[in-house]
């Protein structure tokens, strides 16, 4: 490692691995290190199951009923990919799809009055849903047609709404939508975690609803995808991409010091050696004195031996509990996957309930979600601080990612990646930048 690199990356979480891949593909000399002996950091999938028990200090270990430990790959941070979202685009442009297999998540549900309902997002589904009364359905359908046709470049589709100034609250009023419909539209379709969006210009919300509908249109059952063997496969796929383009990988590598000269990073010291660099990318855990706390998330991993009730025995699903329904400021999410995704032993399900912490008793905050999951074979409770960088790195050339937030998809992660790229390269991110620059599949493909 005693060398000079363009970029050193610390931590092998998804954000770091995607950036590492982009940098290597673009000809940068990259050294990528992680203090852990495994890939992924917070975005790894823990295997075997014994490791998960150890991690949560459950010293007795898994009982025999959990089956073979190595059949498990348990995510620490629950997320799904939006089928039409930015991460899928990144996977396609980089062709990291070569290394992964996906399954469509079987259902998307929303909580209302203690029960769960399938999220209606097409006009047909809206009319069939028992979430709304007859007249409400008609109004909601009209609203969906308006959103589907809305094109920010074509004022003819605006119907009197100004995308930059009309608030979403006014758009709902225009279509005369009731509180329940507003709740699931904002939280289960636009995937907002709080109600702050209501007084913002409506364009962002309309685009989010379009993302949901277009993602749903891809594969039908839900707008979400999940990779076989767990989310930990994602950073590994991008790490391989980086390695193919010359990136050097070192795991189990303690970082002793980040060396700065005149306020600018010049290298990283590890086990007595110094690797020099022009730029540094890292997750918040590598520079604790250069980040600030931006909230807390509670995530409870639950192992079940049954599918969740009223989900039509789905082997995977998402349930959104809008904040209004349970008198909170932020939504509670449940992401459920199972043995069908090679993440659990035969017949087992993993549901992760999560939310942004609002009180001093976070476990109690998640109770409405846990009630939907009972009986629960085993719970693993994690309360994590969220960090964000203090400085944008333009001076120091130290570019720190944000912690993975409470959202159940990767859109905010992708925004962070694009933003870091922009600050590092001094120009706007373009998906074209991610394309492989040379042929790396040989043999009959050449003929």
């Amino acid at each position, binding site marked *: 490692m005693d060398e000079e690199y363009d970029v050193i990356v610390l931590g092998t979480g998804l954000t770091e691995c995607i950036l590492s891949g982009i940098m290597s593909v673009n000809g940068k000399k990259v050294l990528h290190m992680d203090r852990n002996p495994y*890939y992924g950091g917070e975005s790894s999938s823990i295997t075997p199951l014994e490791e998960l028990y150890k991690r949560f200090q459950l010293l007795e270990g898994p009982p025999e009923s959990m089956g073979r430990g190595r059949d498990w790959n348990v995510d620490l941070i629950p997320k799904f990919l939006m089928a039409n979202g930015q991460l899928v685009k990144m996977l396609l442009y980089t*062709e990291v799809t070569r*290394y992964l297999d996906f399954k469509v998540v079987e259902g998307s549900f929303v909580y209302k009055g203690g029960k769960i309902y399938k999220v209606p997002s097409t*006009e047909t589904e809206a009319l069939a849903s028992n979430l709304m009364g007859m007249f409400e359905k008609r109004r909601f359908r009209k609203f969906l047609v308006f959103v589907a046709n809305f094109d920010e470049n074509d004022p003819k589709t605006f119907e009197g709404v100004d995308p930059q100034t009309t608030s979403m609250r006014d758009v709902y009023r225009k279509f005369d939508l009731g509180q329940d419909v507003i709740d699931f539209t904002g939280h289960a379709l636009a995937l907002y975690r709080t109600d702050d969006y209501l007084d913002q210009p409506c364009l962002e919300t309309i685009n989010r609803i379009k993302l949901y509908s277009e993602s749903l249109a891809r594969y039908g059952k839900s707008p979400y995808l999940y990779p076989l063997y767990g989310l930990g496969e994602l950073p590994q796929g991008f790490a391989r991409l980086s*390695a193919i383009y010359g990136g050097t990988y070192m795991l189990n590598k303690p970082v002793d010091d980040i060396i700065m000269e005149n306020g600018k990073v010049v290298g990283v010291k590890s086990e007595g050696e110094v690797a020099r660099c022009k730029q540094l990318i890292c997750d918040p855990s590598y520079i604790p004195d250069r980040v600030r706390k931006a909230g807390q998330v509670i995530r409870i991993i639950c192992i079940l031996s049954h599918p969740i009730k009223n989900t039509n025995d789905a082997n995977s699903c998402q349930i959104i509990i809008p904040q209004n329904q349970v008198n909170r400021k932020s939504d509670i999410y449940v992401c459920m996957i199972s043995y069908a995704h090679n993440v659990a032993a035969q017949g087992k399900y993993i549901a992760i309930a999560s939310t942004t912490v609002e009180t001093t008793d976070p476990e109690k905050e998640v109770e409405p979600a846990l009630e939907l999951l009972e009986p629960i074979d085993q719970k693993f409770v994690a309360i994590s601080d969220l960090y964000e960088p203090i400085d944008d790195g333009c001076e120091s050339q130290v570019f720190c990612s944000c912690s993975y937030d409470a959202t159940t998809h990767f859109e905010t992660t992708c925004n962070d990646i694009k933003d870091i790229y922009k600050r590092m390269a001094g120009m706007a991110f373009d998906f074209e930048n991610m394309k492989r620059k040379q042929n790396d599949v040989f043999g009959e493909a050449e003929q």
Partner: protein
Amino acid sequence: MASATDSRYGQKESSDQNFDYMFKILIIGNSSVGKTSFLFRYADDSFTPAFVSTVGIDFKVKTIYRNDKRIKLQIWDTAGQERYRTITTAYYRGAMGFILMYDITNEESFNAVQDWSTQIKTYSWDNAQVLLVGNKCDMEDERVVSSERGRQLADHLGFEFFEASAKDNINVKQTFERLVDVICEKMSESLDTADPAVTGAKQGPQLSDQQVPPHQDCAC
């Protein structure tokens, strides 16, 4: 896991269903034992003597005929991630066969075989087949690992054994063909529980960047 239908081979691939089976094969072992040379010799019948650390190869494709079946081999390189033992666990997914390689002129590479074998057993599926190969058998003068020791270790680990030379083209084709045969034998034993990977069928949906036309629902 690889698939028959994704877009990695460009235009041609969408129409290229001309095989009965697809096997993902991995070559594994210490740095500079000759994995990439071995791969090039087999797939292209070429050899470059200068040592160049592997950069820029994802995998190579070669179709062979076995018992009237067209078998597409997808042979994956380590992308240099063996150097610091940072091969991803994802790399092992869906591999049907392994060529575990050491260099007969390098004791250390031979001592590492046990470790690599443990990696394979930990991360690959139970039916994956492994062949142990001692490469560079053309360099008899510099040999430090005798054939006998190689054979003993292979017996101990339960693998078949070859000595080979990518440079002089000794036993390269034979190694791959034997591996394919053992995979086929194993497959016919467990045909009832055939893994979709064997037939090259992608399990999930194909990701694509094409816009799907919006739902044209009609209320009437």
